[in-house]
C-alpha cells in the first residue's frame, strides 16, 4: 500500500470522529483507551514509513501521493517525506501516545479533550507531509484551533488570556504567510500551489521580490519558533496550558516554525536567505542568550522551561542559517532532541504539579528525599537539556556550534555561552525543587506510579539512545540537508567543516 502518509495523517482524525460519535455512551475510560489505541496505531504506521524510507534514494521526496483536489484554483493533495520531515513525523506520532497517557489525570470533559488531541495530531502531521503550499497553509491554520481549545478549555487560571494571545500572534503571522503564498501563486504560469511548481516560480523572481516574500514567510515562522521579539506568547501559553498542551506545544508546534524555515525559506528563496543570513543569525544569537538569561530568575518552573525553549530554538535557527552541513543537520537534530528533552521536562513538571499543586520553585524543596526516582528522572532530563555529552542535547548543540563557528566565529562563540547559562538555570531550579530539607506538607508524597513509568521510560530512553547513537537520526537527515545546502550555500563558502583541513587555510591569522 502506498497511501501510508495519508493513513498516518488521517488516522487520528478518524479516531477523533469515533470519540465524538460515541457521545455519552462512551465512558471516560473508554475514550482514553480509544485515543491511546488510535495514536499508537498511528505510531506503528509511521514506523512502517520509517522502515520503507530509503536514505540513499535520489529523488528529494519519497512515498509521494498526489491528487487533484480543487482543480479550479490548483489546490492539490500532494504529500511526501524527506530526511527532515520523516523525523518530525516520528517525533509527532511518538509524543502523542505519550501525552495521551500522561493526560489520564484529565477528568473534565474527557471525550472532547481526547478528540482535540487527535485532531491536533492530524494537523501537525499534515504540516510536515504537505507538499502543496495551500494544503500546508490549511494544516498550519488547522492546528491552531485544537491547541486553542486545549489551552482555553483545560488550562490554568489565566488560560483565556493565554489562549487568545497564542491565537492572535499566530494568526498575525499566518496573514503574511497566506499573502506570500498567494502572491507566489499569482506569478506562476501554471495554476498550482504544488511545492515543485512554486519552487520554479520562486526561482524566476527578481531579487527584491524574493526578499520581500522571504520576509513574509519568515515572520510567519518566526512567530511560531518563536524568535525574539515575537516570543512573548510562549511563556504565557506554556504556563497556562495543561501538561499535554505544554508538551506538544514545545515539542511539535515550535518545530513547525523551524521546519517551515528549512522547507520554504531556504529552498524557495536561496538568494534572499543568503542576503538575510547575518540578520537572522543576529536574531538567533540574541534569542539564545535572551531566552537563557530570562530563564535564570523564573520561579514558575513552566515559565522557566518556556524561556529555555526560546534559547534552544535559537540554536536551531542559527545552525540552519549557517548553511553548513554540520550546522543544518545539527539544527534538525536539535529539533528532535529539544522535542524529546523539553517534552520530557513538561511531563515531569506536570507530575510534580499533580503532587505538590504548585509550580512555584520557592514552594518546593527536598523533593529528592521523598520521590528519588521522579527527581532522578528530572535531573537526567535536565542534563540532557543542558547539553551533557552522552545525552541527546549535546550532539545537536555541538554540531550547531561547530558548523556555525567555521563560518562566523562570533556567532559560534556567543552561542556557546548559553551552555553555561543552561547549567545555571537548570541546576539552580533543580536545587530549589529537589535539594535541601523537605517541606512538612510534602513529606508523604508518592514516587512515580506505574503509569508514569510507562509515560517516562520511552522518552528518557530515547534521550540516551540519541545521545549515544545520533547516527540513527543523522544518516537520514544528512542527504536531505545536503540537497538544501547545495541550493543555498554561497559561492566559495565552506559548506562542510570536515573540509577545513584539506582547504589548507594555512597561516590565516585568528580571528
Amino acid at each position, binding site marked *: 500500500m502506498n497511501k501510508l502518509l495519508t493513513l498516518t495523517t488521517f488516522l487520528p482524525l478518524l479516531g477523533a470522529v469515533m470519540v465524538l460519535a460515541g457521545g455519552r455512551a462512551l465512558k471516560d475510560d473508554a475514550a482514553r483507551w480509544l485515543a491511546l489505541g488510535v495514536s499508537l496505531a498511528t505510531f506503528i504506521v509511521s514506523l512502517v514509513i520509517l522502515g520503507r524510507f530509503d536514505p540513499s534514494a535520489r529523488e528529494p521526496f519519497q512515498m509521494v501521493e498526489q491528487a487533484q483536489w480543487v482543480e479550479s484554483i490548483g489546490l492539490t493533495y500532494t504529500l511526501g517525506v524527506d530526511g527532515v520531515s520523516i523525523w518530525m513525523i516520528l517525533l509527532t506520532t511518538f509524543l502523542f501516545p505519550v501525552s495521551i497517557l500522561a493526560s489520564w489525570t484529565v477528568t473534565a470533559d474527557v471525550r472532547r479533550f481526547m478528540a482535540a488531541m487527535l485532531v491536533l495530531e492530524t494537523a501537525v502531521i499534515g504540516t510536515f507531509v504537505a507538499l502543496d503550499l495551500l494544503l500546508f497553509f490549511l494544516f498550519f491554520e488547522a492546528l491552531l484551533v485544537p491547541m486553542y481549545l486545549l489551552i482555553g478549555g483545560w488550562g490554568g487560571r489565566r488560560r483565556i488570556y493565554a489562549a487568545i494571545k497564542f491565537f492572535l500572534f499566530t494568526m498575525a503571522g499566518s496573514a503574511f504567510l497566506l499573502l506570500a503564498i498567494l502572491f507566489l501563486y499569482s506569478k506562476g504560469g501554471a495554476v498550482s500551489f504544488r511545492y515543485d511548481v512554486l519552487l520554479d516560480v520562486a526561482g524566476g523572481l527578481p531579487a527584491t521580490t524574493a526578499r520581500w516574500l522571504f520576509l513574509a514567510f519568515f515572520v510567519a515562522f518566526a512567530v511560531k519558533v518563536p524568535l525574539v521579539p515575537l516570543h512573548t506568547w510562549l511563556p504565557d501559553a506554556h504556563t497556562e496550558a495543561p501538561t499535554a498542551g505544554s508538551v506538544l506545544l514545545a515539542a511539535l508546534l515550535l518545530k513547525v516554525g523551524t521546519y517551515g524555515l528549512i522547507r520554504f525559506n531556504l529552498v524557495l528563496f536561496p538568494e534572499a536567505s543568503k542576503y538575510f543570513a547575518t540578520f537572522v543569525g543576529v536574531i538567533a544569537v540574541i534569542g539564545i542568550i535572551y531566552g537563557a538569561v530570562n530563564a535564570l530568575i523564573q520561579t514558575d518552573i513552566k515559565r522557566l522551561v518556556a524561556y529555555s525553549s526560546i534559547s534552544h530554538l535559537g540554536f536551531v535557527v542559527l545552525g540552519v542559517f549557517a548553511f553548513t552541513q554540520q550546522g543544518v543537520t545539527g539544527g534538525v537534530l536539535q529539533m528532535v532532541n529539544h522535542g524529546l528533552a523539553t517534552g520530557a521536562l513538561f511531563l515531569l513538571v506536570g507530575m510534580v504539579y499533580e503532587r505538590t499543586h504548585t509550580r512555584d520553585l520557592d514552594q518546593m524543596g527536598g523533593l529528592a528525599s521523598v520521590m528519588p526516582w521522579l527527581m532522578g528522572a528530572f535531573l537526567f532530563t535536565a542534563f540532557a537539556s543542558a547539553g*551533557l555529552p552522552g545525552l541527546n542535547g549535546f550532539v545537536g548543540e555541538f554540531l550547531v556550534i561547530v558548523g556555525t563557528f567555521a563560518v562566523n566565529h562570533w556567532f559560534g562563540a556567543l552561542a*556557546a555561552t548559553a551552555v553555561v547559562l543552561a547549567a545555571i538555570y537548570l541546576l539552580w531550579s533543580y536545587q530549589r525543587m529537589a535539594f*535541601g530539607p523537605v517541606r512538612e506538607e510534602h513529606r508523604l508524597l508518592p514516587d512515580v506510579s506505574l503509569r508514569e513509568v510507562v509515560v517516562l521510560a520511552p522518552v528518557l530512553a530515547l534521550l540516551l539512545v540519541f545521545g549515544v547513537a545520533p547516527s540513527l537520526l*543523522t544518516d537520514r537527515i544528512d542527504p536531505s540537508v545536503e540537497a538544501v545546502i547545495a541550493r543555498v550555500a554561497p559561492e566559495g563558502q565552506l559548506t562542510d*567543516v570536515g573540509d577545513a583541513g584539506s582547504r589548507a587555510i594555512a597561516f590565516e591569522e585568528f580571528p
Partner: protein
Amino acid sequence: MFTVGSASGVGNLLWLVPVVPLAIAVVNLFIGRRLGRLAGVVASVAVGLSFVLSSVIVMDLLSRPTEERLEIQRLYEWISVGRFSGGVDLRLDVLSATMILVITGVGFLIHVYAIGYMEGDPRYGRFFSYLNLFVFFMLLLVLADNYLLLYVGWEGVGLCSYLLIGFWFEKPENATAAKKAFVTTRIGDTAMLIGLALIVSKFGTLDFDAVLGAPGDTIAKGTATAISLLLFAGAIGKSAQVPLHVWLPDAMAGPTPVSALIHAATMVTAGVYLVVRSAPLFELSGVALTVVLIVGLVTALFAATCALAQDDIKRVLAYSTISQLGFMFMAAGMRFYTGAMFMLVAHAFYKALMFLGAGSVMHGMHEETDLQRMGGLIRRMPITGWTFVIGALALAGIWPLAGFFAKDQILEIANHTGRTWIYLLGTLGALLSALYIGRLVFLAFFGAPRSDEARHAHESPPVMTVPLVILAAGAVLAGLFLSTSAEGTLARFLEPITGPVPHGEGLSTLALSVIATAIALSALAVASWIYASGRVDWLGIRERLQPLPRAAASGWYVDHAYSTLFVKPGIAAARFSAEVLDSKGVDGLVNGVGGGVRRLAASGRRIQTGFVRSYALGFFLGAVGVLVWLGTRL
C-alpha cells in the same frame, strides 16, 4: 562492531577497562539498594578488575619496542555528519597508560576504603554507582583518541563530581557547593568547547594524530595561541587554578572518599593531562606556555597562603591540592612535562592518602573537622596518624619520599633554565607547603588533645586503614622507582610523548637538594614549635595579626569579590531583563498594539452592529473578492 587498530592479543581488551565500571555503575544504580553492603564490594571489584586489566595491557605495551607503544581501538562512529566525524576511539600510549594505572589503582583503594567509610548510609548503593560512573568517565577522558571523546569524559566527570559533592543534598550548603562546582568548571568547559570549534574550523577534525602531529603545517602561531588558551581555560576550571579555583574548597562538602578520588587524585589533574597531551599546540604558540607557567605559579603561592589559615582539616587539604596542581602547571609551562606527570602520580598517592586519613580522623571523632578541637590523635589512632605523617612528609618534600623528587626537580628545571624568579618564588611556595602541612600534622596528631572527641577518638577498621598503608607505601616508593631526572624510569617511559627533559646550567643538583631539604625541615621544625610544643600561644598571635589571617582564611575574599562583581549584578541584570525588558518592554509593546487596535476598533464601532448576519455579509463579500481576484489569474 569493533574494528581494532592492531591485532595484538590483550590490547583488544582495552575497551573493557572503562566498560566494566560503567556496567557495575548501572547495576548499582538500579538494584544497589537490594544488594546492601554487597554494592560496595561489587563496585570495588569492578575497579580492581579494571586495574588488573590495565596492568596486563600496559605490561604488553612495555614489552614492545618504544616506537610501537601505541594501541588504537576504534569502537564506533559516534557523530558523523557530512565529512566531519568523531568516533569513540580509544588510544593507549605511554601517557594514557600512566593515567589509567593511577585512576584504577588509586581508585580501587579508595573504593575499598569507602566500603567502610560509607557504611550505614541510606543511599549506599547510589554512592558506589556514582563513584563507578566517575571512574568510567575519567578513563574515557584519558583514553580518548580525539578531543570530542575527551570532552565527553571531561563533562562526565563534572557530572559525577556534581552528584557526589551534593550527595548529602538535604543540607542546603552541600547542594549549593555542588552547583557551584559544576557551574564554575563549566565556564572553563565552554571556553574549551569554543576551542574545539576553532580546531575543527582549521583542521576539519578533532583526532589527536591529525591535530597534534604537525600543527605548524596547518595553523599559524596566533591560531595556536588562541586554541591553546581556550583549551587551557578548560584546564583552569577543572584543575581549580586561579581565577576559577573557588569551587574546590567548597567541594569538600562531599563525602571524604570523593574528595580523595575526584578532588585530589584524578579529576582535578585532568587539566594537567590536557596540557601535556596538547603540548604540540602549546609549543607552537610559545606564549601559551608562559601563561601556563604564570597561572601555575600564582596559584601555587596564592593557595598555599590560604591553606596556612584554614582550621578545617579538609579545607587545608583542598587549598593544598590547588597549590600542588599549580606546581604541576609550572612544570608543564617550562616544557618539563615528565615533571608534571611525575608530580601528578606522586600527588595522587600522598594526597589521596591524606584525604583518606582526614576521613579516618572524622570517622573516629564523630565527623569533627575542626583542627582546633583535635590534638594528640597519633596515640589514639596510630595507623591513621603515622600514615598521615608519611603523606605530609612526602608533600613537604623530604627525601626519599615521592614529593621530594617531584618538587625538587621542578625547581631544579626552573633554576637550570635560567628562570631565577620562578625558582625563588617556587622555593617560597615549597616553604609555605611545608609550613601548612606541618601545621596540620602538629595540630591534629601531636600536642595535647583539645576536646573530648579527641580524647576518645578511636582507630578506624582495617577496611579503611589497609588502603592507608598501601597508599603510604606508594608515597614512599613512587619517588624511588619513578624519579624524574633524565634517567628516571617515568621520564624514559614517557619520552615518546613528552620529549626529552629540558637541560641547562645552574646550581648543582646536590646543592639544590640540600637547599630544598633544609627549607622543608626548618619549616616543619617551626610548625612543630608553634603548634605542638604548647609554648606558643598561636591563637593569640593570630588575633594580633588580624585582619590578615581572616582574609587568608576566606581565600582572600575572592568569593566575595565574585559575588559582588558577577553574581549579584548578573542576577540583577537577569531580573531586569525578565521583569522589565520582557514583560514591560516587549510584551508591553504587544499589549500596547493590542490596546491600540481596540481603540481603533472602538472608533469604528458603527460597523460592528453586533448582528451575526452583517458579519456574515462582510465575510461573504471578502471571500468573493478573493475568489474574483483568483479568477482573474486563471
